[in-house]
């Protein structure tokens, strides 16, 4: 029996290895973010993409996706069958995405004000002017969601509908390690010591420690991953995305850690941008707040309070059964979440 068992294991391994060799030999390029697009606006490193849609439009108001500064927007279009952007397009939405580019030492004095009042403001205005519309739909993702919330509070007349994906607004949280650790961080020493630019690798190390064995588990499951070409490509694309972690503009990082993680000013209604107090009650347009039930990076309790705090009458809280990354690329994201988001915008397009 024991021999038979060993032979079974061996057979399984030979089977896996054979498929794996075949699959990995076939790979020439690992491409991400392949949805066709134009650069329609640019200011320095920041670009605004407009995606091409083949089908008929079902909404006249386009959606502007505001991604986080941490990591890259490509997660929204990782691969054709796992693409939030493509799904919105196929559902009849007109889609724009802001690409923040890669911050360098030259951007060390760029502040949250520059990002929100400057870049987001410019992109929103560009779309409004181009389409001759008074307001656009915003879809804020993670930290980009926090920025979108702030923008919507300051310029409610320019935002038709606001949807946020796994967006932290209440930073006084004990579930999320990131929220706990950030409170003890000497952010001045970090920003000044790093010479004004926080390396992406530094942030990645912190993310890794939230679930210290995640990497081990990922590589441990490689034999199974390698057996299927689709899984293998997905793995390689994710590796590519994770590795591409931009540095952070020091002043923005300093302010984000201090004002949000350490002082929790946004939810308290005490955050001030460009001399204007950000009051969440000013957000009166329809709001869709999406959180991920298993999110260990941005736990639900940090996102859900937005639903309570906004001044909107038309508001909805949506739970996604998965983790932080699953929101963008999980199977349920494709089949349930992104169509639901598109439908939510379309219903409120009148």
């Amino acid at each position, binding site marked *: 029996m024991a021999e038979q068992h060993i032979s079974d294991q061996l057979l399984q391994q030979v089977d896996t290895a054979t498929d*794996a060799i075949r699959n990995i030999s076939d790979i020439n390029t690992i491409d991400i973010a392949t949805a066709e697009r134009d*650069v329609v606006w640019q200011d320095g490193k920041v670009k605004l993409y407009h995606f091409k849609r083949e089908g008929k439009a079902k909404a006249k108001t386009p959606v502007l996706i505001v991604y986080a500064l941490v990591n890259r927007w490509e997660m929204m279009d990782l691969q054709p069958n796992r693409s939030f952007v493509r799904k919105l397009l196929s559902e009849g939405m007109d889609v724009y995405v802001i690409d923040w580019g890669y911050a360098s030492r030259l951007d*060390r004095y760029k502040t949250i004000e520059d990002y929100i009042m400057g870049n987001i403001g410019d992109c929103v205005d560009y779309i409004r002017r181009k389409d001759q519309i008074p307001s656009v739909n915003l879809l804020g993702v993670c930290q980009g969601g926090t920025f979108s919330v702030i923008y919507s509070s300051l310029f409610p007349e320019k935002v038709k509908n606001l949807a946020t994906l796994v967006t932290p607004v209440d930073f006084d949280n004990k579930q999320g390690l990131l929220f706990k650790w950030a409170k003890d961080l000497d952010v001045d020493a970090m920003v000044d010591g790093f010479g004004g630019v926080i390396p992406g690798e530094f942030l990645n190390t912190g993310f890794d420690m939230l679930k210290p064995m995640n990497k081990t588990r990922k590589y441990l499951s490689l034999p199974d991953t390698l057996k299927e070409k689709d899984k293998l490509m997905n793995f390689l694309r994710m590796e590519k995305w994770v590795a591409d972690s931009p540095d952070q503009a020091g002043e923005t990082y300093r302010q984000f850690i201090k004002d949000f993680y350490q002082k929790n000013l946004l939810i308290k209604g005490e955050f001030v941008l460009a001399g204007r107090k950000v009051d969440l009650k000013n957000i009166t347009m329809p709001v869709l707040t999406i959180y991920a039930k298993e999110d260990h990076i941005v736990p639900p309790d940090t996102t859900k309070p937005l639903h309570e705090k906004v001044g909107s009458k038309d508001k909805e809280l949506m739970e996604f059964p998965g983790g932080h990354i699953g929101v963008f690329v999980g199977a349920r994201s494709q089949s349930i979440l992104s169509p639901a988001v598109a439908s939510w915008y379309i219903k409120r397009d009148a």
Partner: protein
Amino acid sequence: MKKGIDEMMENQKKAFDSWKDWSDQWMKSMPGMTPPSSGKDFFVPWMEMQQKWMDETMKMGNLKGSTESMPEQWKTWMDMQSQASEKWMDFYREQAKQFGVSVPGISSFTKAPFVEMGPKQWQTWMEESNKWLKENILEKIPANMKPHYQNFTVLYDEMAKYWEGVQRMIQFGSFSKGTTDQFFTPEAYRRVVGLFLGFKPVDNVAKLVEDVNRFFEDYIASMQKMTPGTHDFMDSFTRFFRDWGRQSGHPGLQAVAEVTNMMEKGINSLYHVAGPSEELAMAKLLKDVQFAYTGFVMKSAEMQQILLDAGQFALPDTIKSFYDEFQETKKMPNYTEFFNRYANHLEDYLLEVLESDEYSILQANVSKSGIAVKAKMDELIELAFDDFPFLMKSFADEVAQENTSLRRKVRDLETRLYAIESTFHGGSAMQKTTAEPPKPKAEAPKPATRKASNSKKTTAK
């Protein structure tokens, strides 16, 4: 999972298919190679022979248990594999030799007689294949993810050394901490956890602290004998570090000694660049670097020790959980199952520490002290090149400040211009303005790549 000889045949066919595909591809791309039909000519008769054997075996009855009930038939089949392997590899070698192409499996199939059972041959092939796969995965993943994957493969192999012993412990229920410690020594444990978390383990923290204290006392005593501002000062200073670096035999301080040696070499050339006037300032900075680095090493060691202490019961727990299952099922887990469960147990213990206030503060201090070293080194380099026409950090900061300020001014002017033009055109907020962007330009979808300026950090998610 499917079982039986049919499965074995299916897998072999897959393997041969793969080899055939590769050689077909080469032959297409390399003129002068033997036409693809040669491979096919070999392959088809082999498959027909297999099928014939299979039909005969089926007539004899129980195919599933044929390895036990029909050893002669099984041996015939093995011989068939042996012949097939040799023939195919001969063909393959001939083709590959002309082009010096290296592929998995080529070295594992020798022309030696098939004295062992077929599975052993396949085991060898599989090991070669795994090696090839590791190399090819490594080639496909981004540069800054490579160290993580390499780390994992080292860790996986390291743990495998203990797998045989662990199986016995599972079988006999030897899962007390004392027993596992004898087998899986504290040194081995430190090495493994270090690999899991990606840090270089420090040996004995108490001894490290003692050594560092002694270092500071020696350092202060030596400094009192020196005369600042002279070449003698600099010579004594570097000599002190060099000697101390050589004398410190403690593993935890080896890294400090390495840095000291590295700095001695590097700093000497910096002194030549900077000239005598900068020597004293640089010597002071060097001292700061040294202290900052020592502080960083100590804090790191403390943090590591907390994590190491936390995870020490993960192995006994893992063995116990498998022992409990073994009592019921009499089934031994495979190595991967064990490895996976050990990682999960270890993570549970580590998270208890990671969630503590103590760890959070310590981690913040480690980060702060690590960055302090970097900042001091930056200062040192800037000082050394002070009189040279290079764009140094402090000046670059002024440029960055000016850049940001100008962008704000431009944005402000655009907004004002837009407001004026809107008024002029009747106040419509939708009026087109000079801010209208240029004609859209198509961007070829391309994989995002880190810019060269960012690629220096090739080390974690």
